[in-house]
Each structure stands twice: as C-alpha cells, then as structure tokens.
C-alpha cells in the first residue's frame, strides 16, 4: 500500500470517528440512532429534458409493462410520453433495495420504511424537490412529512421522496385445505398446527416484527409497545417464537413468484403474503386462496419513491416519480398490487371508489393501526430511554440463527 492510500484510509477512518463523535455528543439528535443530519446531498432545482432512460428498482408489481397481464401496463405509456426508456430491477426485500442502491447504478427506488432512513443517512438518496413533482400537491396529507420519508434539516422538514402507497401484510391460506378459516396469526405460530410442513413465512429479518406483533397482542406481560422497538428480552421472546415456527415451515419465500408456485402446487397452504400474490394466484385459478388482516393487526409497508444521490438520469427520474403518483397510474398500481394509493385523486378514477374503500385509502385511523416496516435501531423507537433496543444488524444475525 503506498503512502497516498494510507493517508486516504486514515482520512476515511478519522471521518468515521468524527461522525461517531458527532452522534455521541448528540448535537441536534433528531435522527434515529442519534444521527443529527443526513449527508448533504444536492437537490435538483430545475427540471431539464429527459436523458433517454431511467433505471428503476421496484417491488414486484410496481412497474408493470404488460408482461404479467397485457392490460396492466403503465411503463410503455410513460416511455412513449417522455422518451425515457424504463429499465426495471425487481427487488425482493428492503435489504436488497438498500444493497442495490449502494451500487449507485440506479436512479429511483420504491423504498419501504425499513429502507428509507438507511438510504437517507447512508447518503444514497438525495432530497426531493417536491415543487418539481406537480402531482405531489394532491397526495394524502397524512402521508407527507412522516418519520420514514422526511428528515428535519435546520428546523425545516425536508421530504426525501414521493409517497407511493401503503398496505398491510396479509395472512393467506388455501381455502380447500385449511378449515376452519383462520382469524389470527396464531395459525402460523401454533406449535401443534395441523399444517406442519406446509406453513410459509417471509424470508427477511424484518419478519421478526411479525412475531413481535403477535406477542404484543397475546403476551402483554412482555410489554412490547412497538414491534420494531424490542429490548433484548422482548427480542429473545420473538426469536424463540420464530424458532418454534421454523419446525412448521415447509419453505420460506422472498421471491414472490416462488410463493405463487408454492401455493399453486400445494407445497404451502398457509402463511404471510402480499395482496398482489393473492391476486396472482386467484387469477391463475390453480388454487383457491383467501387473504385477510388477522385480528392482531398487521405489519405493513408505506412506500416512497426516492431518487439516488448519484443518479445519472435525474430528469427522467423526476418524470417517473411524477408519473407513478399521477391519479390514473397510481390508481392502476394500487389496483394491481392491492394497496391504498397515496394519490387522493386516484380514488376518483373510474371504479376506484370501492378499491379505495377496501384498502381504507383515506382512512387515517386505519393507517395508523398498521405497523409499517421501520429500521430497528439501538435507540428505542417507542420512546423508552432506560433500555437499549436491538439494532437491525442483530436482527439479520438472529434471522440466520432462526433458520438454523
């Protein structure tokens, strides 16, 4: 290693030390994990003409180009209207999204709440100039300036993305084999389940929160107030529950097509799911499935389109963000994916009133009852200051251990 490299490494190390000191002394201290302000990334101030393409990281079902269903296509109309070719990369988990955004090769990402702040504080995404996104004005106001999509910078709340939509993780079962129909998450945690070997669960550390939510409702003695804010004892209880569940699980899924196939072939008959997966299986008609929000409530997601701080195609990226929350397209996405649209005017599209009713789109109280994916940090998110909570890095370690 030559001298320059040594100096560079030293400089980098001391920079990290400085960041560490900054958070330890708690200057500002409004961010999670004691982080004061996110790295200063430049915000676009004026929109130019498109760069010809845009690289999109999306959840399955968020950027449909007609290949799943010829009538479901909002990518091609965007391409012909703006001249920006859309290159879609489907990500299966929030962690995968963060990892992909680290590469700096993508322009926009549909990040859930357990990815957003990691991206913001990692310097991977830039603040979003909402005045360049005309459709932002009519987004439901209860989705703006929230903890997972904005950061206070110098006393002013800065949006880091455009809200896309939200919904709950569901309990799905094969209605032919699973009787009586379950109403509780207990169906996937019961050690004596008759469906042993045919239970499925989402293959991501964030799924630990689903166990925590179940414990929160069934074992009040543990004192869980927020499934993403677990002290060691609460965390261990959730992990123990999942280790029990591991004996029931036939296979885990993170690739949504795998879950579709597993339910259609009878490999899985009950487990956690997304509405879009239930829709796909019901559409294929190879298996009869039902999906509900169980009595304990659900974890869920609230997604935000964010723009990379290293975006090579920022203009196309802004055009995409504006497009995806335009009333018609946001309605189409919400309908296809099975979630509440973020765009208020989407609910006034033809046939959308019932969809918005089903997913409680305008229902702020209902929305408050869903435990949105959030990144667990050492500082407890539920406001406790007398204990340390288990940070996400240990969630990932525990997940390996649960699978064994």
């Amino acid at each position, binding site marked *: 290693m030559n001298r320059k490299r040594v100096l560079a490494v030293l400089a980098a190390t001391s920079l990290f030390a400085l960041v560490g000191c900054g958070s330890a002394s708690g200057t500002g201290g409004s961010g999670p994990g004691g982080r004061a302000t996110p790295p200063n990334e430049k915000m676009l101030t004026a929109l130019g003409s498109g760069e010809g393409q845009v690289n999109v990281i999306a959840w399955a079902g968020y950027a449909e180009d007609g290949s799943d269903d010829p009538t479901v296509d909002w990518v091609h109309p965007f391409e012909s209207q703006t001249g920006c070719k859309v290159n879609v990369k489907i990500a299966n988990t929030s962690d995968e999204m963060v990892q992909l955004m*680290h590469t700096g090769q993508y322009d926009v990402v549909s990040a859930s709440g357990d990815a957003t702040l990691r991206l913001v504080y990692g310097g991977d995404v830039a603040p979003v100039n909402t005045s360049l996104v005309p459709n932002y004005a009519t987004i439901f106001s209860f989705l703006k300036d929230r903890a997972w999509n904005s950061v206070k910078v110098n006393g002013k709340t800065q949006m880091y993305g455009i809200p896309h939509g939200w919904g709950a993780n569901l309990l799905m079962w094969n209605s032919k084999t699973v009787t009586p129909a379950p109403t509780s998450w207990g169906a996937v945690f019961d050690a004596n389940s008759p469906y042993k070997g045919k239970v499925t669960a989402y293959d991501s550390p964030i799924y630990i929160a689903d166990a925590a939510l179940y414990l929160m409702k069934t074992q009040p003695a543990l004192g869980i107030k927020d499934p993403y804010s677990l002290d060691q004892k609460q965390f261990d209880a959730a992990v123990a529950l999942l280790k029990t569940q591991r004996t029931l699980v036939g296979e885990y899924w993170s690739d949504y097509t795998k879950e579709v196939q597993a339910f259609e072939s*009878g*490999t899985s008959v009950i487990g956690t799911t997304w509405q879009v997966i239930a829709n796909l299986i019901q559409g294929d008609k190879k298996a009869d499935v039902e999906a509900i929000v169980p009595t304990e409530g659900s974890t869920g997601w609230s997604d935000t389109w964010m723009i990379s701080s290293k975006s090579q195609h920022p203009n196309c990226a802004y055009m995409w963000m504006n497009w995806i929350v335009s009333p018609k397209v946001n309605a189409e996405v919400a309908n296809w994916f099975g979630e509440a649209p973020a765009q208020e005017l989407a609910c006034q599209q033809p046939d959308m009133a019932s969809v918005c009713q089903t997913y409680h789109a305008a229902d702020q109280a209902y929305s408050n009852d869903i435990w949105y994916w959030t990144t667990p940090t050492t500082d407890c998110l539920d406001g406790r200051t007398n204990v340390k909570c288990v940070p996400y890095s240990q969630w990932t370690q525990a997940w390996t251990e649960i699978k064994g």
Partner: protein
Amino acid sequence: MSVAASRPRAKAIGRPRLRLLGLLSLPGLWLVVAYLGSLAAMFATAFWTTDDFTGNIVRTFTTTNFSTLIHESVYWHIALRSLGVAAAVTVVDACIAFPIAFYMAKVARPRVRQAMVVLVLTPLWASYLVKAYAWRVMLGDNGVIGWALRPIGLHGPGYGLLATTITLAYLWLPYMILPIYAGLERVPDSLLEASSDLGASAGRTLRSIVLPLAYPAIVAGSIFTFSLSLGDYIAVKIVGGASQLFANVIYDNVITADNLPFAAAAATFPVVVMVVYLVLVRRTGALDNL
C-alpha cells in the same frame, strides 16, 4: 530487431524469453490481478465492518466477523451440514458415474461410446435454473416422483436436504463421469486380460486392478462435485425447503443483510476447505488427472 541483431547473446537468450513473457503476461496479469487480487481484496474486507444503521462499510480493522463465525454455534451447524451435503453428492455421483464411465471406456463400441459422451454432455447445454426448477416440479407434492412412488405406498422426499442432494448430484454428474472415463481409458485392456488369465474373478479384477488405477480419476472428479456443491446456494433455495447451506449465509449477507465484510469472512470458509481438500488429494495424483 536491430537491437537484437547488434547483440548476438540477447538474440539467443533474450528473444525466446521475451516471446514467452509476451505470451504469458496477459493471462498472468489476469491470474494475479483479477483472480488472486480479488481473493486478497475479499480477505482484507473480512476485517472491516459495517455501520449498524446505514450499512456503509466502516474501514477499521476488527476481527469481530471471524469471532462471530467461530463463537455462534449456528454457523458450525450450517458448515457441517454443507460439508455433509457436498460429501453425499460426491459419493452418490461417484457410485453412479463409475459404472457408466466403465461401460463407456471398456465395454461400449466406438460409435456407442461417442454417442454416450454426447449424451453425458448434453445436460450441460441446458440452463442450471431450468434443471433445478424441473427437479422442484418433479419433487413437489403433485410431482412425478411422488406419483411413481404412491403405488408402493411411499411418499416423495419432499423439499429438503435429500432433495437438494438429489438435485446437486444430478447437476454435477457429468463432471464426475468425464474424469473417470478419461482415467479408465488410460488403463490398458491387457491388464484386465492378464488378471483374468491368471484366474481372477471379475470382482477381484475390479477391486485389485481397475479401482486402484481409476482412483486418482475418481478423486479428480470429486474435486469438481465437492467444490461445486459446497459453493451452491441456488439449488437449496429451490428444492431445499426451509434449510440453508453455507453459501446461503454468504449470499444472505451480501444481498439481504448488505454486510459485505461478514460475507467476506464467511467466504473464507469454503476457500479454506477447498485448499485443505486439494492438499489432501494432491498425494493421490488426482491433480494430474484434471
């Protein structure tokens, strides 16, 4: 040219060397920089760590990753399981490959032999994923294997380690057949004839003549099947049910945990295993059979 001509000695010695250097420099550069260099970079990364929250790499020296790997029993279990699967795949492949290779090398007529070499190689032309998913369908609840076993009152193996072993054994079988076939072809027929002339039974000839001579070739094949199985993370995701192997730990740490330093630390395990394996088999002469 003119420089070389003015110095006869350089012409005699220097030019062939220069030519050799020119010939080897590009592959050599590839070997050192891209191949060994990336291994070294991986090993260096293993001593870094990541920021708990943002997942950014923190470049300060620490051995935490290795101590986690050593002190958490779960990684030992996964490591042993992976070694077991790799060993099982190797044994299954050797048992299936030997008779086929023997038939190809010693029994079949030249035209049949050629056809069999083509047949053995054909599956390599199909995509890995297509073959793995085909096994997923066959091993599934309504798959052909369960269907075939039902009349005799048995169930299919379902998804799990057994299914993973079957799938991997299928995938890597050609890599076992070909070295054994090549090894057996080099065994002179006269030795087999001499053995039987001296009164040895077919079994005795196999035990005392064929197997010892083919052993290095079998070990050479095992290097492929063992290392390919040890590094595989896809088949177990497709047919392994809820089980995970060591390569999944590496994959999960890259993709889902975004923890490259820990993944790098974990990746040293298969590297070490393979180095030990190669050192052990070096004595058998297997490396000359590759």
